[in-house]
């Protein structure tokens, strides 16, 4: 075994030497004919062939790879007449289709007798494989280069070093360049000189990457009383680097959890923001709020079905249409509810709660009857698919990112409406002092209706966003109703900033607890924490002060 390995090592290192020499030659002489190097493959003994393979690979020429691949598979031949090198393709046992190895020109078919196969042995095979791997690093397609670099990183071998150096020189894309640098350092870890290894360890220590951590961890392995890494200084440096990486990975994990928390918080915000209007501003306990969210999600489904049926080419725009559509549908339903039920129950919050709960049952059952009890498929447009991946194993999916942005946009748009429009002014006037507002000529009944419509419509918009990350089923709303109330109550009634703070802190706390307690227990803990919190501040984080409280 050991003998075999050392044999392989010398082979590989001699190829490396050859490639390296070959490259030097290229840079020096600049123009040596590719044809000559291909011709050299057929000459001399196996040692010469190894040299020739290295020399060919060192050109970094695109045409070298197919030739070497053919040689590896035993399909590279010398023509008996004229002695030129050709790549053959077996049509049958006796017949070959030939192509010129250098130019790729079709030479027609020929009998298998007319050509002589270029023989190789295991040493040559190893040399070819190594050379091919190196060549891929300079492939014109960046995806191929990336795959090759990843392959080197997976199985670092000193033989790649010279090719890597050339590849790094030639590389133009910055992220590929860092990947190649990482691969180079990984290769250098098996270098013979301590200084090289030390430098490689230090270089790798600057990455924050579970893969690099694995590479460095390999140095500290002790097997059968023999250290994988003989030098104490290198081992110490590796241990230090690993500790560094672990610390940074942990920080990234916390960042990841916070991101997840913000993502959850934005979902809660979308679900709760309409409630902040109906419950927070109007004081109506709308238990059918979750169903407004659900209706918004179904409105998205209907819009997408229409797009699929009539304008399949514009499917990417379906969400943009679904947002106003969902707003309209749910706002109309909300206004009908306000006129039909809630207006008779003002000042009786507990009765309102019961009536709207009944309403939520009716809406759920109605949707179940119309659309069926199963989940409905809501598509995600192309521009929302995909993810940003960072090196530290953190994945930020685009749909979550868009939802975070969207929830903030909705929140701020609502703030603007409340603060800078006539409707917003009237809404605030009516909620602060109804008789006085009526005395000033504000039609309070109409304002109530529009306010409730606005809150419901925003719930519907929330439903559009939630349809992208949750199952669209008649029960969609139910799963958010308790959470939404928690957010509004925790944040403080009647304050949109409170809703934002409530949603984000609940989301982040939940996700930070999850790694320690598990998803369900984390949720239970958050619920218990809110129950306790309400004891301390019965009016929430951002409580209204002064006369508004008494009203």
């Amino acid at each position: 075994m050991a003998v075999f390995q050392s044999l392989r090592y010398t082979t590989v290192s001699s190829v490396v030497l050859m490639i390296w020499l070959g490259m030097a030659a290229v840079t020096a002489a600049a123009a040596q004919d590719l044809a000559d190097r291909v011709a050299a493959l057929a000459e001399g003994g196996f040692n010469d062939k190894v040299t020739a393979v290295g020399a060919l690979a060192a050109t970094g020429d695109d045409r070298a790879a197919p030739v070497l691949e053919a040689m590896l598979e035993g399909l590279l031949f010398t023509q008996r007449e004229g002695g030129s090198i050709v790549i053959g393709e077996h049509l049958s046992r006796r017949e070959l289709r030939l192509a010129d190895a250098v130019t790729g020109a079709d030479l027609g078919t020929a009998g298998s007798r007319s050509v002589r196969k270029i023989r190789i042995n295991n040493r040559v095979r190893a040399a070819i494989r190594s050379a091919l791997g190196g060549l891929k690093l300079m492939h014109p397609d960046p995806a191929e280069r990336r795959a090759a670099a990843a392959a080197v990183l997976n199985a670092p071998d000193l033989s790649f070093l010279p090719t890597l150096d050339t590849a790094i020189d030639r590389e133009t894309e910055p992220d590929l360049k860092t990947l190649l640098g990482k691969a180079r350092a990984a290769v250098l870890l098996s270098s013979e000189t301590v200084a090289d290894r030390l430098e490689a360890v230090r270089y790798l220590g600057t990455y924050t990457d579970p893969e690099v951590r694995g590479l460095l961890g390999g140095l500290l392995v002790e097997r059968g009383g023999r250290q994988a890494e003989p030098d104490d200084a290198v081992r110490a440096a590796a241990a230090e680097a690993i500790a560094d990486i672990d610390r940074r990975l942990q920080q990234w994990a916390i960042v990841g959890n916070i991101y997840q928390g913000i993502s959850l918080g934005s979902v809660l915000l979308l679900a709760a923001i309409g409630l902040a209007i109906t419950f927070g501003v109007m004081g109506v306990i709308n238990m059918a709020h979750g169903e407004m969210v659900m209706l918004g999600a179904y409105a998205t489904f209907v819009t997408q079905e229409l797009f699929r049926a009539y304008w399949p080419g514009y499917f990417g725009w379906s969400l943009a249409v679904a947002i106003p559509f969902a707003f309209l549908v749910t706002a109309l339903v909300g206004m009908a509810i306000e006129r039909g039920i809630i207006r008779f129950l003002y000042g009786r919050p507990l009765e309102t709660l019961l009536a709207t709960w009944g309403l939520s049952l009716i809406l759920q059952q109605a949707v179940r009857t119309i659309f069926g009890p199963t989940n409905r498929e809501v598509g995600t447009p192309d521009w929302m698919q995909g993810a940003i991946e960072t090196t530290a194993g953190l994945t930020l999916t685009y749909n979550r990112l868009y939802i975070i942005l969207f929830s903030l946009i909705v929140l701020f748009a609502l703030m603007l409406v409340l603060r800078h429009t006539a409707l917003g002014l009237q809404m605030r006037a009516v909620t602060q002092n109804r008789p006085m507002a009526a005395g000033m000529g504000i039609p309070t009944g109409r304002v109530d209706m529009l306010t409730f419509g606005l809150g419901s419509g925003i719930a519907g918009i929330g439903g559009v966003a939630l349809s992208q990350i949750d199952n669209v089923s008649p029960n969609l709303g139910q799963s958010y109703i308790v959470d939404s109330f928690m957010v509004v109550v925790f944040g403080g009634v009647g304050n949109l900033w409170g809703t934002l703070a409530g949603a984000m802190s609940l989301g982040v706390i939940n996700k930070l607890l999850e790694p320690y307690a598990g998803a369900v227990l984390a949720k239970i803990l958050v619920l218990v924490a809110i129950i306790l919190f309400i004891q301390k501040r019965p009016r929430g984080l951002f409580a209204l002060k002064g006369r508004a409280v008494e009203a």
Partner: protein
Amino acid sequence: MATGSSSGYTPLLLRIDAGGWVLLLVLIAAGIGVPYANQMLPQESPWHVPTWLVALLGKYLCFALLALSVDLVWGFCGILSLGHGAFFALGGYAMGMHLMRQIGDRGVYGNPDLPDFMVFLNWDSLPWYWYGFDQFWFAMLMVMLVPGMLAFVFGWFAFRSRVTGVYLSIITQAMTYALLLAFFRNDMGFGGNNGLTDFKDILGFSLQADATRCALFAASAVALGVGYLLCRFIVTSKAGRVLVAVRDAESRTRFLGYRVEHYKLFVFTVSAVLAGIAGALYVPQVGIINPGEFSPANSIEIVVWVAVGGRGTLYGAALGGVLVNYGKTYFTAAMPELWLFLLGGLFIAVTLLLPRGIVGTLQLWGGVLRRRFSSGDRKRGSHGAVAPAPAGGGE
């Protein structure tokens, strides 16, 4: 001070209103009649009550007791609890744990100590909180103590910091939701989402036997009757007067020097114990308890029973519990897709059209009729019924 003399000195039996007498008489008749009709009458008799019906009626009685407990806090103290299902379920789990221990080695795995689901989860010993549940008296104690303690602790925190109205409703809902999530976890040791089931016998009597069913039915009737008397006793006592005052004007009552939170805590805890007992009687009759009982929707439904029957009338709540559940049984079988429409419509109709519920509305009509026919000026409104808005201190 006209009614002052009637509270405090009158014996309990004289404090029961007409509807209450009807309820008690019906309970006595049913408690004796139904088991008799099941056990003594031959199957061919038109008056024979089949066993499934006994179990169903027993279930209704448990729901009636649960509705009673909600009416006690909501109708008389203004605490709208959306988490009473939690107390019911906790009582049910305490009973279920006893019944699980009673299975002994007759389970699928034949382990004498561990219930099947624990064997299935590879647990090697009984968790500490299961100790003692093999004793009937201990289980019965826990049936009352666990919901009572939870209500006491929860109420102590909530009432002391003056969490009232809608806020209280929402945190009670959060409480039952948290318990729902907790009981769904397998590691909690309560059987996860399957809950506890497959019970064999209670106090040595097989749960499948007709006689046991009848006995459980009778026990439910007795529990409802005693529960009613207890509630009636509380609401007609002096403390009951304070509770109604708290319901109608909490701040005013506080300013008068009453420790409002003590009264609320007392009645909330009593109510939770009643709900726990209802749960304990419910479990052996339906044969299963699972975390679904904790779902917030269940708790809200209980409130509707009370609202339908008539809030603040006690016997009305019991009536509402039976009526709505009968409707549920009927419609979920006859027209399953219609039931949710009907239940939802019931919620809306009752709050909009019948704010006093069936009994309250009948009382109102009765009062109108009586006033029209008797020229004499009898005292308006019997005490204990829904008092109209607090109008100054007549008392």
